[in-house]
């Protein structure tokens, strides 16, 4: 499909309208706005990288500052998804600046998934593809997932101190399988600290969902620079 094709009959959409649609979670209205913008000759990649990603960043910041609440975050993610559904055919085969693959889960023994789900929302809204392994995931399943999906980042979430004791098991299993150098491991959850991440030998730490998206984006970009 040619995303530069113009349809002069369509009303010109200000990118700010798309941005506001994400920020206000208007998932029912955003598809039309994106379609019209494409028809007016704006490239899909520009809409994605210059309008949608920054909008989700704004949403994340509002969530971190306490201005936004969980429903706001979920609705913004729904709007983002609706916009992406329109853009997808135009982006086939094109690599975006922020695209990366993350495998997410909660650690073995931990059934708490609210934090993980919020991180998923922010990651997807920031352009990551997320494969969610769910809750209570054992070390061997991590190894299988890394082999199968080849993610850049493995995100581990945990709320309980005891279950976090299983994080070193995952790192050890990855090492044994010869995969440790192939994937960055990020850990988060209420009792997790940067110190904990350093101690167990993981790579990335984020204190909340918004920060996770920023930290992961930075890590991927750094990784790309070092391989170029």
């Amino acid at each position: 499909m040619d995303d530069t094709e113009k349809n002069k009959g369509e009303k010109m959409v200000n990118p700010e309208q798309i941005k506001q649609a994400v920020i206000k979670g208007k998932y029912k209205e955003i598809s039309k706005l994106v379609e019209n913008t494409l028809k007016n000759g704006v490239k899909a990649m520009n809409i994605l990288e210059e309008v949608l990603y920054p909008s989700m960043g704004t949403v994340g910041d509002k969530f971190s500052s306490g201005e936004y609440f969980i429903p706001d975050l979920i609705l913004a993610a729904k709007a983002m998804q609706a916009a992406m559904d329109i853009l997808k055919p135009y982006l086939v085969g094109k690599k975006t600046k922020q695209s990366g693959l993350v495998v997410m889960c909660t650690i073995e023994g931990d059934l708490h998934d609210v934090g993980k789900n919020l991180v998923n929302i922010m990651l997807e809204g920031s352009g990551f593809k997320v494969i969610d392994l769910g809750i209570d995931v054992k070390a061997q399943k991590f190894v299988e997932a890394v082999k199968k999906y080849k993610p850049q980042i493995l995100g581990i979430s945990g709320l309980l101190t005891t279950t976090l004791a299983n994080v070193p098991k995952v790192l050890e299993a990855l090492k044994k399988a010869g995969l440790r150098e192939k994937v960055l491991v990020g850990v988060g959850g209420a009792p997790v600290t940067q110190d904990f991440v350093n101690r167990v030998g993981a790579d990335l730490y984020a204190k909340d969902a918004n920060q996770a998206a920023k930290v992961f984006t930075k890590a991927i970009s750094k990784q790309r620079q070092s391989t170029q």
Partner: protein
Amino acid sequence: MAFKTYGEPDIERLLATFRGEKTDRVPISENLIEDKHITHMLGRKAGSTLGETGDVAKGTTDEAAQARPMDPKNYIKVCNIIGQDVIFMEALWAPFKKIGKDGKPHIIADRSIKSKENIKKIIPPTQKDVDLKINFLKEYLRAVKGTKIGVSILTGCFFQVNYEFVVGFTDFMVKTYEDREFVEELMDMAVDYYVKIVKAACDSGISFLFVADDVGFKTGLFIPPELFKELWRPRMEKIIAPALNKGIPVMFHSDGKLDDIMDMLIDMGISCVNPMDPYSIDYRDYKKRYGDKICLSGNIDLEFPLSKGTPEDVEKDVIEHLKVMMPGGRYLFGSSHSIVNYISIENYEAMVNALHKYGRY
């Protein structure tokens, strides 16, 4: 090491603390002590303080919804060992059911209720469900006669039961914006059950009511405070009204940061807030802001010192808490959630002993 306590359990100590009156020492309370610690205390298996089977009575299965609470005699022994003034009877989860594939009613825990049409499938809790819990409660009340130990009922989570088991977290939260009728109908069904439980519990002679409903997380409430107050406050007021009307104090539990609703809780007539989640609440700050208006409870961190620290770390942290929280009273000592099995026996003993050693007025 062994438990070294000061002063026998006495519910008057705890109730006086709610009122901000002078007591001999800071009272201690845990709504759940898991089975490893109970086995250690009693020298035999006796379940956890919320369930005889040792599983936390989470109401997520048909069996758990019917499970017996801890044997009252065992619970009284536990109170005497650690110096706790009250025993808690669990009636947390409104037992919503629906017909399963086998044609029989089963507890809903699969988060499958997503629309008003789905609500029609719900079989609301019945009087039989209420009676089951109240009969257990009466066993407790009979058992404490002749002791100074009080009895409380742990109940009232009409918000959480719906997002956790009935609808699912993200769908429920979005529906608070997009389909208020749906969430209000579900909450009202749960409230009806809890009101019956509370009325019967208050008529039976509980010492205080303990309502628990997790409404927030690390950074604040799940939904905006104004919306929360509209949806939650009138319903919780309905649940606690039978207690307040009889002069029975009410304690409230929610994990997370509660800054946005602390004044509201005080205004509602709540006497005590638990557990002051240390990942979002600085107990020093809360003591300054609310310590003369409401009893504050908990905050000894499960992560550090209770799980990761040494008994010396635990003692040091307890002393620091007591130094801040004791002046002016209104402090109910306890952990930041519950005494789980992953806390070492030594650390829990150190926590209890430090309270009894340094928590005297």
